[in-house]
């Protein structure tokens, strides 16, 4: 047992480089038993890398790192779990064909045989899954998946719990429940470190916040100290959104680009979308809102032909495309920027962008018409210097720019953004929303699916609100009251 006086984490001058890039630079941090520490910082600040060092998944290039009393510069891969470090991933990937309990069971195998059952029972109870333990992990909703991820960590009986963006994708009451769960885990005597973009989570939970920027520690303090520090406000939140950047200089309207009538879709026996209708005119921005599980991503996939339409029809530029394949929809000018970006990670940025070009269709690309790419570079000048980098090595925000650029390369008439801002820092989100407005100003119609409700509503010409797969509101954002919004998200009547 560790003495209460010994800190659970001691980092001194911890540095990690990848090739020529220093992802974590000379970071000092001490975490004492029982603390709840938050780590924040913009994309590319080195949060994930620092976390992977503490989790024992990578080793520091320089510096001292002691976790749970062990020298983490020397341990082998996979040892960290036995030494008492549990990491909950941003995107839970349980064994879908095993039950909740079986998934948690597997994690408990680091413990002596006699302690396993008790540890699993305890983990299930704390994470609120006892009643759902025989459910298949593949059938769980997002919040339940996050609960399972935390249960899997608790089953290791860890001293230190690392939570990597566990709130990503959650909102409303789901977010509150998750915050409550983290609080319970902490109250049960665990030391917790969390990396989080969702400000609310840090503010409600953390006793102490560490801010990283460009791999170095910018400052640390209480949540209040941090959020009032002008340096933090500037790098993390950016200056207040420039109103003119979001101004629409084209009045949308005119011909109908995309029209959906009575669309139903789903997976297997599950009906996710029921009788959804919508219409998007030239240069219009339609924002689709709804709580998790409302069917937003399924709608995006159905529009792009990735999910089969059960009933109803999809019309694009006056033609029925209900049975047209995904690739043919892209060629007609209906583009989708998918959730999670789905870039070709091993290809360079330039190759990723070029793939979408119409001139790339033959065996040998003509390279005659690169003009769509000029537009992309004017929208995101940073991509010019990133052209020869592998897409998979970029930060999340840069990857999202490439994903938007790749969609624009096909010169679309309509572009669908699915969860454009998921997991990105506010300043990056602002930049991307400015780009969305710019794209609409070019006359391209936009379907915007967003968690960031208020920002997405600010740029919308029209909004469509989904609740359990059905349209509960369709019209101008100004006609949609805050109470109605709460009802759609929180389910209160």
């Amino acid at each position: 047992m560790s003495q209460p006086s010994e800190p659970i984490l001691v980092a001194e001058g911890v540095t990690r480089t990848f090739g020529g890039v220093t992802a974590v630079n000379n970071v000092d941090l001490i975490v004492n038993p029982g603390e709840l520490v938050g780590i924040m910082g913009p994309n590319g600040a080195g949060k994930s890398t620092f976390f992977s060092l503490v989790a024992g998944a990578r080793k520091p290039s320089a510096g001292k790192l002691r976790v749970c009393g062990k020298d983490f510069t020397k341990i082998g891969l996979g040892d960290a779990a036995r030494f008492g470090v549990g990491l909950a991933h941003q995107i839970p990937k349980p064994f879908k064909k095993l039950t909740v309990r079986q998934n948690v069971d597997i994690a408990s195998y680091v413990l002596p045989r006699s302690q396993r059952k008790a540890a699993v029972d305890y983990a299930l109870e704390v994470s609120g899954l006892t009643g759902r333990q025989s459910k298949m992990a593949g059938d769980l909703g997002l919040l339940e998946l996050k609960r399972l991820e935390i249960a899997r960590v608790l089953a290791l009986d860890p001293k230190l719990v690392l939570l990597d963006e566990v709130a990503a994708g959650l909102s409303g009451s789901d977010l509150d429940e998750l915050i409550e769960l983290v609080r319970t885990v902490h109250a049960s005597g665990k030391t917790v470190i969390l990396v989080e973009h969702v400000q609310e989570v840090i503010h409600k939970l953390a006793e102490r916040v560490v801010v990283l920027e460009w791999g170095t520690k910018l400052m640390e303090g209480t949540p209040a100290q941090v959020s009032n520090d002008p340096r933090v406000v500037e790098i993390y939140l950016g200056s207040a959104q420039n109103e003119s950047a979001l101004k629409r200089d084209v009045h949308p309207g005119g011909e109908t680009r995309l029209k959906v009538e009575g669309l139903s879709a789903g997976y297997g026996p599950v009906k996710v979308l029921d009788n959804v209708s919508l219409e998007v005119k030239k240069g219009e921005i339609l924002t689709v809102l709804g709580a998790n599980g409302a069917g937003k991503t399924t709608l995006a996939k159905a529009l792009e032909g990735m999910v089969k339409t059960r009933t109803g029809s999809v019309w694009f530029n006056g033609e029925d495309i209900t049975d047209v394949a995904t690739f043919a929809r892209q060629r007609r000018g209906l583009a989708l920027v998918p959730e999670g970006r789905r870039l070709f990670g091993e290809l360079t940025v330039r190759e990723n962008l070029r793939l979408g070009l119409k001139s790339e269709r033959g065996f040998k690309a003509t390279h005659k018409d690169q003009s769509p790419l000029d537009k992309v570079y004017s929208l995101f000048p940073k991509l010019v210097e990133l052209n020869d980098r592998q897409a998979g090595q970029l930060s999340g925000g840069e990857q999202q720019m490439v994903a938007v650029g790749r969609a624009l390369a096909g010169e679309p008439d309509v572009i669908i953004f699915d969860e454009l801002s998921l997991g990105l820092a506010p300043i990056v989100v602002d930049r991307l929303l400015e780009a969305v407005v710019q794209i609409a100003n070019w006359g391209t119609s936009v379907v915007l699916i967003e968690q960031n409700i208020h920002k997405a509503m600010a740029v919308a010409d029209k909004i469509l609100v989904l609740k359990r797969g059905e349209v509960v509101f369709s019209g101008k954002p100004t006609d949609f009251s805050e109470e109605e919004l709460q009802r759609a998200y929180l389910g209160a009547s």
Partner: protein
Amino acid sequence: MDFVNNLVSGLLLGGLYAVAALGLSIVFGTMKLVNLMHGQLLILGAYLTSMLIAVIGGGDPLLVGIAAAAILAVLIYPVQRYIITPVMAQGEEPPMTVTFGISVVITTLLIIIFKSSPLPTWTVDYATTQWEIFGVRIREIYVIATGIALLFVLALMWILKRTAFGRQVRAASIDAEAAGLVGIDVKKTYARVMSLSSFVAAIAGVLIALSFSVAPTTGTGWLLRAFTVVVIGGLGSLPGTLIGGFIVGLVETAGAVWIGPQYRDVIVFGVLVVILLVRPNGLFAKVAKA
């Protein structure tokens, strides 16, 4: 001198093995498909060439082989597009089973048409010529095969790296669904890859028929050889396949000389097992990503 002799002939035999394995390698590398009909495609290339020579009434097997390879590529396109690809949505095993079924069909058809007797050998000089350079005896056909292996590896790498088609193939192999989002017709792309693989296989088949005896049932043996080469070289790596070919050629020749020709297969597959134990992803596989 014997040592150098064996070394050189082993390496050059390896060149032939590499050509035979290239088609298998590219299909696995891009479509994650274990193509169990690859051996039959090799043999079919030789038989098609033989039929064409009979129709034309003569001709150099390698030149006629190019035409035969083009015909095979056209014939295989719809097989991939309408039989194998539709099954690929159901996971990795079903399409593999389908290719096995097709291999049986090809073998049976060849037996029906040509009986089970071996393909008559072609009388061309380069099939039988042996050069002697500084006392080292070299079969000319192995030199040609090794040259063609090098040429094909370079050509295939150029296609994958530098052409729009190559970019589409790589994109589809990384994420087929996302490839659809950028306008790539993945089903067509897969069929083209299989055609390309068949083209290379047919040329390899002609080289095999020029070097060894070929019968309707020899395909499976060549599939095993090709499979060994691809696994040793690292699944899906083209230069790895070339080096894998050289290794198998060397090991086989060395084993035949020092241990005994009857143990050739035991030694080759023994080395395969050892390599798989030590480096499960093959010698030259890209390091797995974290």
